């Protein structure tokens, strides 16, 4: 399949993607479809409203807050305040794995809690029902923390979930109750919910436990949700390297770990979009710097581990990291050698999430596959273009509605982990703290970058490029597959994984090899249809 393929000129492609839209829509969408051309300014329109009626991949604010950020922590009991659906849909559908240390430890992840709001509550207010629900949850489960998530009607009818939370915290004493005003209509995608979740965790959880934990090198891993067991693989690597992982936001995490998470020396940031707020606020308040990492791809994983070791500057640690990387890279290299003959030269497209569309290009690179188009579902411009453009991002009405916490250095606990000189020295060695350069610099020339791609645009792209694998989510999966193109879900990993770290890379190689080489795709055309297609004139003679 490494035969050179012919495609229309990029400008024609773009025209094709837009031509059916009403003029206003076309104009708007045009700014979100960018050719990654080194000669052009790399500005992409992102984090703006989806046009009503356009079939989008996006979800809502609640999904970002409860579904993404809060959901994975096993011992925070999440009550969704609203009609039953919102809680129901976020029940175990994200595959955030969690593994209590003991059989007695709390784990509410397999549970779904809702106030199951009825018409009466919409009419007369739902605070009483919410209060009752919290009391019952406390009585049955005795959790240390309860989070309340507001869904659409809650904000509109004026229920004050924060007041209820305060009252219940006071009443229950040994249970921290806090609320999130993450109504679905806020912002333009899940992104608003991430921000709201970051704020809430920082206000109500972070900093509540100032214990200094044991361990020479203490870190947090931010923006890693342990889908398919990714965090487990990374925990394994940190442990082997001698790194103490205090908390993960929020894969396989506990409330206690999050409370203590400001006591580390470094934050590693995986999903920049969903969690950079915590990284920034923790730096401002406590002086903990953050380092963007990518544990997707064997090389990226090694690189990220080495950067982390460099940050700590400890020779023993560096040696240990080196040892681990070498051992693990030997395995990934062997696995790659087995898979690559089947994957080399094939084409991929990725339209998913707020960081995965970037990270997973590393794995495709390792497989010798080209990513010819990619884009995010709920990212901001900096996720494409890099953080340097943040000052240039226009704040629109939808973003303005999301609270921006005012953080000041903590009077007691603020302590910069590195001096300005050290930071410069690290930068010289390629370890840039607080920096993210976005997806576009890492993409090949003349590839397409498309934000919030629509169903229609995906279809056209596929018709034109016939990629060998398409990465997106479950809503897209069977649509794309009906076109004969295998789709890899990069939210749920198609119920496989882990894909992070070294073992994850091996899993991914195998899965992609399977997907692009399976003979079942050849079964699609019935032989009598093939015959018709190949020699239509024969069909007639076929009929006796």
């Amino acid at each position: 399949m490494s035969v050179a393929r012919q495609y229309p000129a990029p400008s024609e492609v773009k025209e094709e993607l837009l031509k059916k839209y009403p003029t206003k829509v076309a104009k708007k969408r045009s700014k979100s479809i960018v050719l990654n051309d080194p000669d052009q300014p790399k500005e992409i329109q992102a984090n703006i409203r989806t046009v009503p009626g356009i079939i989008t991949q996006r979800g809502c604010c609640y999904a970002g807050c409860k579904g993404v950020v809060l959901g994975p922590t096993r011992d925070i009991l999440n009550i969704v305040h609203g009609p039953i659906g919102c809680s129901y849909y976020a029940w175990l559908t994200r595959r955030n794995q969690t593994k209590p240390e003991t059989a007695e430890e709390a784990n509410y992840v397999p549970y779904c809690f809702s106030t199951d709001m009825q018409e009466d509550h919409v009419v007369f207010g739902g605070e009483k029902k919410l209060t009752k629900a919290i009391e019952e949850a406390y009585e049955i489960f005795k959790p240390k923390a309860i989070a309340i998530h507001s869904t659409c009607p809650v904000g509109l009818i004026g229920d004050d979930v924060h007041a209820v939370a305060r009252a219940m915290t006071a009443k229950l004493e040994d249970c921290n109750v806090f609320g999130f005003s993450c109504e679905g209509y806020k912002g333009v995608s899940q992104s608003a919910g991430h921000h709201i979740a970051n704020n809430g965790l920082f206000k109500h959880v972070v900093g509540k436990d100032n214990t200094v934990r044991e361990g020479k090198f203490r870190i947090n891993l931010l923006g890693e949700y342990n889908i398919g067991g990714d965090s487990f693989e990374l925990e394994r690597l940190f442990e082997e390297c001698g790194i103490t992982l205090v908390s993960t936001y929020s894969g396989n995490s506990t409330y206690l770990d999050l409370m203590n998470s400001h006591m580390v020396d470094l934050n590693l940031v995986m999903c920049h979009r969903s969690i950079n707020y915590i990284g920034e606020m923790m730096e401002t308040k406590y002086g903990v710097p953050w380092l963007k990492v990518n544990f997707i791809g064997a090389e990226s994983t090694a690189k990220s581990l080495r950067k982390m070791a460099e940050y700590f500057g400890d020779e023993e640690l560096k040696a240990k990291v080196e040892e681990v990387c070498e051992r693990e890279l030997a395995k990934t290299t062997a696995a790659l050698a087995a898979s690559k003959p089947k994957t080399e030269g094939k084409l991929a497209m990725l339209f998913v999430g707020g960081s995965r569309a970037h990270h997973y290009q590393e794995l495709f690179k390792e497989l010798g596959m080209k990513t010819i188009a990619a884009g995010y579902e709920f990212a901001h411009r900096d996720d494409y273009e890099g953080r340097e453009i943040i000052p240039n991002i226009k704040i629109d009405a939808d973003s303005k509605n999301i609270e921006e916490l005012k953080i000041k250095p903590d009077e007691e606990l603020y302590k910069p982990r590195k001096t300005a000189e050290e930071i410069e020295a690290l930068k010289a060695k390629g370890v840039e703290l607080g920096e993210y350069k976005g997806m576009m610099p890492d993409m090949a020339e003349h590839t397409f970058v498309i934000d919030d791609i629509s169903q229609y645009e995906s279809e056209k792209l596929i018709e034109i490029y016939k990629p060998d694998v398409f990465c997106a989510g479950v809503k897209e999966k069977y649509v794309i597959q009906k076109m004969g193109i295998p789709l890899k879900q990069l939210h749920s990993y198609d119920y496989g994984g882990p894909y992070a770290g070294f073992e994850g890379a091996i899993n991914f190689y195998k899965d992609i090899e399977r997907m692009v080489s399976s003979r079942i795709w050849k079964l699609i055309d019935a032989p009598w249809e093939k015959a018709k297609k190949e020699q239509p004139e024969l069909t007639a003679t076929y009929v006796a």
Partner: protein
Amino acid sequence: MLLRHTTAEVKEREGLTINPAKTCQPIGALYAALGIHGCLPHSHGSQGCCAYHRSMLTRHFKEPVMAATSSFTEGASVFGGQANLLQAINNIFTIYEPDVIAVHSTCLSETIGDDLQQIVTKAKDEGKVPEGKFVIHASTPSFVGSHVTGYSNMVAAMATQFAESTGEKNGQINIVAGWMEPSDMREIKRLSKELGAKILLFPDMTDVLDTPQTGKFDMYPKGGVTVPQMKSLGDAECSISLGTYTAEAGAIALDKKHKVPFESLDIPIGIDATDRFMMALAKAAGVEIPEEVTRERGRLVDMLTDMQQYFHGKKVAIYGDPDHIIPLTEFLVSLDMKPVHIVSGTPGKRIEQRLREILAETVPNANVKNGPQADLFLLHQWIKNEPVDLLIGNSHGKFIARDEDIPFIRFGFPIVDRVGHSYFPNVGYTGSMRIVEKILGVLMDRQDRDAPDEKFELVM
């Protein structure tokens, strides 16, 4: 233990629902609308609703599930969603070119009081609905009823907003399809054909949510009930609705508006419900039930008399939607099985009543509850207090089944961890045989698993 916090002690709850046995209206409306040919369902609310519903239906069917959304933002939520919907209608007809847009509301748009009827009229007035195209709408507030209610409301909307009376009867029997799988609907159509009855099934998800892999994506697949067909509903001789809670409203709507008399039946799961359907259909069509159908029935009975010993007297816990669990419970009772615990999240007094009637003779002390707090947490607690031999319900039950080590059959909605339900029916005599085959399968597998070596049987 996955659900380690679930203990046997049942505490009365009023505020908290835990592990629900239902979801909310819009997904039902979306599903029902997919049974219209050339239809793009539209969710008038936040983006998340649409994304969640599409995802869940996709997981269940492993098929494309297309729908659009009004993509409410905070502004729309405060000032009303009319502009969003008008814009959406225009965009959808331009870009996706459906025959029909079927709009359903959400808790959001209902709370702010958007009037779909008025907005749709406005869209028509403004020329946003092309000639020969349609926008129908159903009010489906999430805080009323359940997903089942949403289905029912959209089916009623189809009947109300499409059916016409020409004044001349067309000899057709409307079959209002309750919430079933495409496989079930295909089976209903096959059985009707065997009887020689001229029926129109609506909605109709066959060839919509069980489409072939062709290498080509059809946004509007072959199947679904067409607009002319829906118009003809008003001229039918009569309607038979299959499912009190998901289909009856459609039949009532046709009776009210077009004087089409109806008979309200259960979804034909199990022998008695299928018997009633066959007799009603035969009567309506003025035909005799053909021998081949009687023989199908006889094959089911044969399987039952052959295998009786394996299911007789077994205790069962059931959860799900009323139109599924009512005939299922009736079927199990007719097999001398003992449904001892039943929950449904869907509210409605008649549901518990009907179940209690079915259980009265053989399982008078069964635990039965529906509505708020009739959830899987409660069901699990009941099971801890009185263990069962078999658990039947949607995929969520697998956590209980694993913790309590109970043979488990997936049945109802959603089934997101196995396939087959959309291809092989549970309705009719053949569908009932499939249910029995599954029951026998898990019970006999369990016997095989638990037998000591010396009791392991070759022949069973």
